[in-house]
């Protein structure tokens, strides 16, 4: 599709070039007819009508060219974003978690949009810069060899100068651009830290500093621009001086009767048109370059190796057939290690343990100990770099991830709400859930009280632009999703923050209920939860350092009892 539009863009560019020549030709003929041929208005009328038609056609070509170029841009961008989305899906949340917040969506949005200028402005201009001068040359050469040579010789000067000056100025320009963005950042930084400045009694002094920094920047930049703008000067000069040379050269030959007036006038009209697209290419060069820079980051993302992740839709060999229920199977980690690509140290090292069906397993450890990575492994977002995870007799990596996740209800720390109604947000857990099921799940998670307070109940829009749910309310929604999912395996990342007593009690009760008759892995932050756990896994720097029940671990001392005592010391 994009190819067709691209071809159309090129064809319209060529047509535009031909029309420029035709317009110059008919104008020259009219002027010549009246001025030297002594014709009156009626006699040149056919040429005037031709001129009018050409003019109308040119307007059509301009319109068509812009629309076609935009069509190219729109399609290329949509295609790229689709590729990026699929890539993000394959890389999964583990990759996402390691990137700077917002950076990936920025690449997919602004990054891809920056390509717009490249496709809708720079690329068509390249076509025009090739087509129009070529067409002009073809038209000029048979009419006047000398003018053709002048055009031919001077034309390459424009791109040559452009590249030469561009190369020279590039470093300076980039440094200036950096300085500019630094200065913007400085200003933003100052505004964001205004309260801090005020508290420290420095806010007034800062105003002078802003003026100072801006003025210093202006001086430095103007010094640089005096040089970089020489490029504009040279480009203009090549275009205008060449036109002047052509004018003088054909004028002199006309004087000696060596050239027809109509040909001379044609060449004079066409000469500026010859340089115009080349100059415009220079103006659009920047748009083109920023597009190329944006493309760099996009291709970098697309080229991220997927060695440590599993393709989400790969058809794998299943030696045990289409088994879809693993509720009675133990899940065993056997010497599992995980290392992110490009990192020196493994996040998880040589973990060996089993989760029996129906067990409540609590995972504890300080932040960075590898708890979330373990949960991601179990969810199948990533694959062990060493060792294996077995579910019964099957290896987890041999099970279709979609089918496996059907068995899992996942409750994250900060549940994400999507644009849409509250009901739609619930149905993420079960697409075809009936009203009663939703209601029942909501009751068990304490979400009903929230829904009842909302003016439109289940039809309330939430997420961006809708009403905002508080942290506690969102937590209830996540729990309600898990109840609705009704899956045999629950993976739960408990809220680590202090909650108010009401939410605290509700959370404790709901988690207790959710755990009944299910296998549960919980990343635990609450004393209450660990006391109830059948097994506690204590992680330290990616290693499993202790394993046992609360009482056992408290009795034996070590990492676990240190954690618990620090928690108690807190109150």
């Amino acid at each position, binding site marked *: 599709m994009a190819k067709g539009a691209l071809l159309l863009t090129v064809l319209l560019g060529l047509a535009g070039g031909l029309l420029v020549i035709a317009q110059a030709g008919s104008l020259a003929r*009219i002027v010549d007819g009246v001025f030297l041929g002594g014709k009156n208005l009626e006699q040149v009328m056919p040429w005037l009508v031709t001129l009018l038609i050409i003019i109308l056609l040119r307007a059509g070509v301009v319109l068509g060219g812009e629309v076609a170029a935009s069509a190219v841009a729109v399609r290329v961008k949509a295609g790229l974003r689709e590729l990026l989305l699929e890539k993000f899906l394959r890389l999964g949340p583990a990759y996402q978690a390691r990137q700077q917040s917002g950076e990936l969506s920025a690449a997919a949005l602004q990054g891809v949009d920056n390509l717009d200028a490249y496709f809708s402005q720079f690329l068509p201009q390249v076509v025009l810069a090739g087509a129009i001068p070529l067409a002009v040359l073809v038209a000029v050469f048979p009419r006047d060899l000398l003018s053709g040579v002048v055009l031919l010789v001077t034309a390459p000067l424009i791109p040559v100068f452009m590249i030469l000056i561009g190369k020279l100025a590039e470093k300076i320009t980039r440094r200036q651009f950096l300085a500019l963005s630094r200065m913007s950042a400085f200003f933003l930084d100052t505004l*964001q830290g205004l309260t801090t400045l005020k508290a420290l009694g420095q806010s007034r002094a800062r105003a002078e500093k802003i003026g100072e920094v801006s003025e210093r920047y202006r001086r430095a930049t103007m010094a640089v621009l005096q040089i970089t703008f020489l490029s504009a000067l040279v480009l203009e000069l090549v275009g205008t001086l060449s036109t002047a040379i052509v004018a003088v050269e054909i004028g002199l030959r006309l004087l000696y009767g060596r050239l027809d007036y109509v040909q001379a006038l044609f060449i004079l009209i066409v000469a500026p048109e010859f340089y115009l697209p080349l100059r415009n290419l220079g103006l659009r060069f920047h748009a083109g370059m920023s597009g190329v820079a944006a493309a760099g980051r996009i291709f970098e993302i697309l080229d991220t190796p997927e060695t440590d992740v599993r393709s989400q839709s790969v058809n794998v060999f299943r030696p045990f057939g289409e088994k879809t229920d693993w509720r009675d199977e133990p899940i065993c980690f056997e010497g599992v290690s995980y290392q992110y690509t490009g990192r020196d140290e493994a996040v998880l090292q040589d973990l060996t343990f089993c989760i029996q069906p129906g067990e409540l397993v609590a995972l504890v450890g300080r932040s960075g100990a590898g708890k979330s990575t373990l949960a991601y492994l179990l969810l199948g977002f990533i694959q062990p770099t060493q060792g294996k995870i077995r579910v019964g007799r099957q290896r987890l990596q041999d099970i279709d991830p979609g089918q496996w996740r059907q068995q899992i209800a996942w409750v994250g720390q900060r549940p994400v709400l999507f644009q849409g109604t509250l009901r739609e947000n619930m149905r993420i857990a079960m697409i075809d859930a009936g009203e009663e099921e939703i209601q029942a799940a909501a009751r068990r998670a304490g979400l009903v009280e929230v829904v009842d307070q909302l003016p439109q109940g289940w039809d309330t829009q939430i997420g961006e632009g809708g009403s905002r749910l508080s942290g506690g309310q969102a937590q209830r929604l996540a729990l309600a999703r898990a109840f609705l999912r009704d899956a045999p395996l629950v993976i739960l990342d408990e809220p680590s923050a202090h909650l108010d007593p009401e939410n605290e009690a509700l959370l404790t009760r709901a988690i207790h209920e959710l755990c009944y008759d299910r296998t549960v892995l919980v990343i635990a932050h609450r004393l209450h939860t660990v006391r109830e756990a059948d097994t506690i896994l204590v992680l330290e720097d990616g290693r499993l350092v202790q394993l046992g029940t609360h009482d056992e671990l408290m009795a034996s001392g070590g990492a676990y009892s240190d954690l618990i005592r620090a928690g108690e010391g807190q109150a």
Partner: protein
Amino acid sequence: MKTFVRLLAFVKPFWKGVLLSIFTSAATVGSSIGLLGTSAYLISFAALQPSIAYLQMAIVGVRFFGLARGLFRYLERLSSHSVNFRLLARLRVWFYCELEPLAPARLMNYRGGDLLQRAVGDIEVLENFYIRVIAPPLAALLVTLGAGWLMTGWHPELASVLAGGLLLGGIAVPWLAHRISQAPGRGLAAARAQMSATYIESLQGLADLLAYGQESALRDRMSQSESRLAAVQMRLAWSGGVGNALGQLVGNLTLVAILLVAIPLVRAGQLDGVLLAVVSLVTLASFEAVAPLPQAAQMLEASLESARRLFELVDAQPAVLEPASPLPPPAGSELRVSNLTHRYTAAQPPALQGLDLDLPPGCKVALVGHSGAGKSTLLALLMRFWDAPAGVIILDNQDIRDYRSEDARRVFAFVPQSTYLFTSTLRQNLHLARPDAPDQDIHAVLEQAGLRDWLEQLPNGLDTWLGERGQQLSGGECQRLAVARALLQDAPVVLLDEPTAHLDAITEQELIETLHRVLAGKTVLWASHSLTGMQWMDEIVVLESGRAVERGTHAQLIKKGGLYATMYRNQHDELIADL
């Protein structure tokens, strides 16, 4: 219109630069007109084969205009950029000075960086206001006048045709182009915002989506957003294309009109035949002047919108009024709060109700209670970020409102919940507390704040860059840096606004021990949500809904068995120390 006039005031100091850029911009187009006009004259006259002497003038003209255009363009770009930068600096300083008295009280309703980021963007839009909005129409006017004057010399009818064409191309076309692109332009912003929201929520929620097998639903939603965006973009391409095509069409049609008028004039002997080519090419060349006007129309609207947003922001009434004749700075630091009541807005319940508090020098008081109980409100009132409508704060035996707020603030060192670090070096970040502090003092406070080991492993010591693009600090390190800042400030009273709120239990414990050690000689007012380290305080005030409901020492309050005792028991049970 009011906004426009107010904006114009900013340009006043730079009027010379603006005039220069307008003149050079018109001269650039004028040179083109001159080049093509003299060239056409040259060849037309040459076709009549006169003596070469008659052509010399024309040849000189052609060469002159050929050189002049490049030079004028160069000057134009330099002068316009110079104006831009000066204007940018002026706008920034102006905005900052206007915003300063409003912070933080009047900026609280705006969510964090959002507003400020937009303000920075708005200022950058306005930076271009004069060059892209004011200068092009004025330059186009100059060119129209000049070309009209030239044509009048040949024949007045030609001048009116050209002027008519230029007005059409300079006013009607931009207006129309702007009109038809307005709706799709707004649609584009909306479609982009929607797409961006979809993207961000999907990426943030990727774990949830994959865990719940929502891949295909996600693909559907993305492709829906994408096709909506594509449709708007195509509509915009159509309207943009129509605008550009019309611009070109008007120029070329004016050429046809000029020919229709000029040919009979030539035949009637009222116009020299030599000039026929000249008037044609002058017509075509002069339309370069109106080419930037459609963009100017669009920029005008964007500029006015940006300006309106900025003006609205800075026109807010400051929450704190400075006294007309302030007292000299306070000499002592004794504080007494009596019957203090505060509401943030009339519609909200009071955040603080009838609070009394004595803070003699060296005394240590804790404010505890759930979030929203009024702890931070009291600290904000002491810092004079707000003024309370009822009750009074007495600092050194005088009402705090009778001092200059800057002088009053000097009594306090403030350690916030989360510390803002500026993107600059560690040293500069600390110098904010005391600009003339020598390095040895900085080392001393960093050591006191327990940051010596951290400092030693920094690549460039005190010259290490912090903030967004610099060294990343953990939450505990950030808060310790805030403590170091407060120590460097060496103010008699230290206000702690839940400095451990975002820290895990072990880090919290360690930081509180540090605070205990280094703040021994100071007056301390400590707002806290967690009840760690309360044994250290002389008095604990328990706040609920803005009222002091219990007060006493830790031991007294535990013994009393009231709200404090319940809170203490709950927290004891609640969390284990991981994170």
